[in-house]
């Protein structure tokens, strides 16, 4: 198995006709993902290298049986596109777009929860299940199939750790980028639960960063509900308070959201936290071998 996207994913891409949408959409198809449709208003009837384009997600879902949606539209239209995907009845929405106003996301978050739609992101690199499907912008060449589930707030940092795992001969069940925004559709705890229930996942690597308390809540959740070993990495020990470090959500507010507090919370629950991406990968390999 794998989580969130697998062999049965039928993908509709909002924003397929844009430059980035086309580039990554075709890469996803080349990887083997079943890309069944694209959506761009007023471009229905066109196609992108054989992928049919529809005006609305509802049409794409009805005609092509799409069950997974990827959002690649510009930030100011992205929350509306996610809402459209939820209304169209797809089960999973993966939002790559960075820079969606957080007030827009509050309503969208609750809409997804109420309808039981799994929302990943926004401001995330997507989800890759090695050997099965790639939905998003994760470069698949650094990840082989294997027993380690990865969940992360950051893109390049995940590729770094994935590459070190691969060089150590290890692979992944899935790689999930949950996103670096203040409000994301799925938190660490949501994805941890999916890995806990996934037969193929033997252990989990969790990559966090400063800001918010998703890592602290994950620490509590791991102690209470996750039986599989979890190894963590936290970025941002040198970040000063009050400064946004690239990601909209990566900010220490007053004394809350520090890397130190997250590390302590995780270690207090028995989660080993690597000092560097390299050490984190080494610990993961060691834990898996033991």
């Amino acid at each position, binding site marked *: 198995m794998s989580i969130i996207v697998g062999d049965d994913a039928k993908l509709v891409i909002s924003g397929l006709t844009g430059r980035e949408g086309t580039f990554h959409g075709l890469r996803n198809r080349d990887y083997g993902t079943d890309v069944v449709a694209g959506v761009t208003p007023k471009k229905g009837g066109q196609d992108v290298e054989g992928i049919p384009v529809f005006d609305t997600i509802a049409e794409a879902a009805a005609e092509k049986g799409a069950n997974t949606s990827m959002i690649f539209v510009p930030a*100011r239209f992205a929350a509306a596109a996610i809402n459209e995907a939820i209304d169209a009845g797809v089960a999973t929405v993966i939002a790559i777009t960075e820079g969606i*106003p957080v007030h827009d996301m509050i309503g969208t978050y609750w809409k997804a929860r109420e309808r039981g739609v799994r929302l990943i992101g926004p401001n995330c690199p997507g989800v890759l299940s090695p050997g099965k499907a790639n939905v998003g912008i994760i470069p698949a060449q650094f990840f082989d199939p294997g027993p380690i589930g990865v969940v992360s707030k950051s893109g390049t*940092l995940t590729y770094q750790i994935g590459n070190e795992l691969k060089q150590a001969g290890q692979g992944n069940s899935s790689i999930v980028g949950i996103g670096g925004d203040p409000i994301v559709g799925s938190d660490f705890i949501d994805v941890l639960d999916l890995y806990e229930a996934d037969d193929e996942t033997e252990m989990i690597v969790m990559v966090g960063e400063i800001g918010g308390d*998703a890592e602290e809540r994950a620490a509590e959740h791991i102690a209470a509900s996750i039986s599989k070993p979890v190894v963590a990495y936290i970025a941002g020990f040198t970040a000063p308070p009050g400064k946004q*470090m690239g990601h909209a959500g990566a900010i220490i507010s007053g004394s809350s959201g520090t890397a130190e507090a997250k590390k302590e919370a995780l270690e207090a629950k028995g989660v080993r936290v690597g000092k560097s*991406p390299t050490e984190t990968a080494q610990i993961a390999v060691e834990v898996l071998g033991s």
Partner: protein
Amino acid sequence: MDLLEYQGKQLFARHGVPVPSGKHAKTIEEAVAAAEEIGYPCVVKAQVHIGGRGKAGGIKVAEDRDEAEQHASAILGMQITGPHGEGPFEVHELWIEEASKIDAEYYASIILDRSAKKLLVMLSTMGGMNVEEIADKDPDALVRRHVEPAEGFGPEQAAQIAADAGVDEDARAETAEMLVKLYTAFNELDATLIEVNPLVVTSDRRVVALDSKTTIDNSALYRHEDVAGFEELSAMDPQERMAKEKGLTYVKLDGDIGILANGAGLCMSTLDVVAQAGGDPANFLDAGGGSKADAIVAALEVITSDEKVKAILFNIFGGITRCDEIAKGIIEAAGRIDLGVPLIVRLDGTNSEEGLGLLADATLPDLHIEKTMLGAAAKVVEVASQR
């Protein structure tokens, strides 16, 4: 984007939130003229992006023209450090405000609660101290109420909070009205934080916002031209200003090792491993997917404009962006600007062999190539320490 007190108050006023009248000043002369116009007593307030101004001597009452001048000259140019070690920030601007006769000081705030994914309204009659202090001293004195997205926040909810917080009965209706207006402003402004501390009841029993700490969501600035106009580039650090003008994601730090990496997470991680290797990072700079020479030149120009920088680490893990493209960008950039400091490049990921080969063939002066992130961190610390 964090707003200064006076900017927040100007927005409050536009949303019907009562604030004392005041004037903005950037020089001693402007401050004195403002004080004369407002009358005495008036308050001279440092405008910086942090709390704790009063304790640092950044807020003073002037009883006459001489005092207004003394306070303005003392406060302009003052360095203020925040309660959590933020800054220090130099005071470039003042807000001169009519003095209020105060009966009671309350605390009110609305924040985006990231864990609950809801807005959180807080009210306490223990104003004047910071919210952590209130929570420490008497947790029951701080009323916290989440706004249910389906329900919203109106007069009924506001009145309940005012009653639960124990607001004086004759000030309850006005306090509740204030909360509703702040909530409306919060939504209309795309705020992520509005804190009014203190919210005061004046001796003639009016409810007034005596301070404002407001943060607006950067991602929503496109729909708030009036707010975006508040950005004072002149008050920013010179490197941060330069980065802003070049459209780069840059944060200035205190150290002497310049950092450039692709991706926010990897860049934060790079700062951390450099610190672990005994170095002191000078900045955060996310190059994004920027492999083009223009973007690399822009980034290197910002980093080297900080005279403290003794060496630069360029940490790249190529995903979609190919390392050979990045290597070409570095080589072209090196031909266009003279860095004056050593550049340590770590290239890994997609097409790293080709990229490393190109860099080796180019034999650039003062360029050190490393294959791993930890090796590069150790190298940059070693090189910087020798200079």
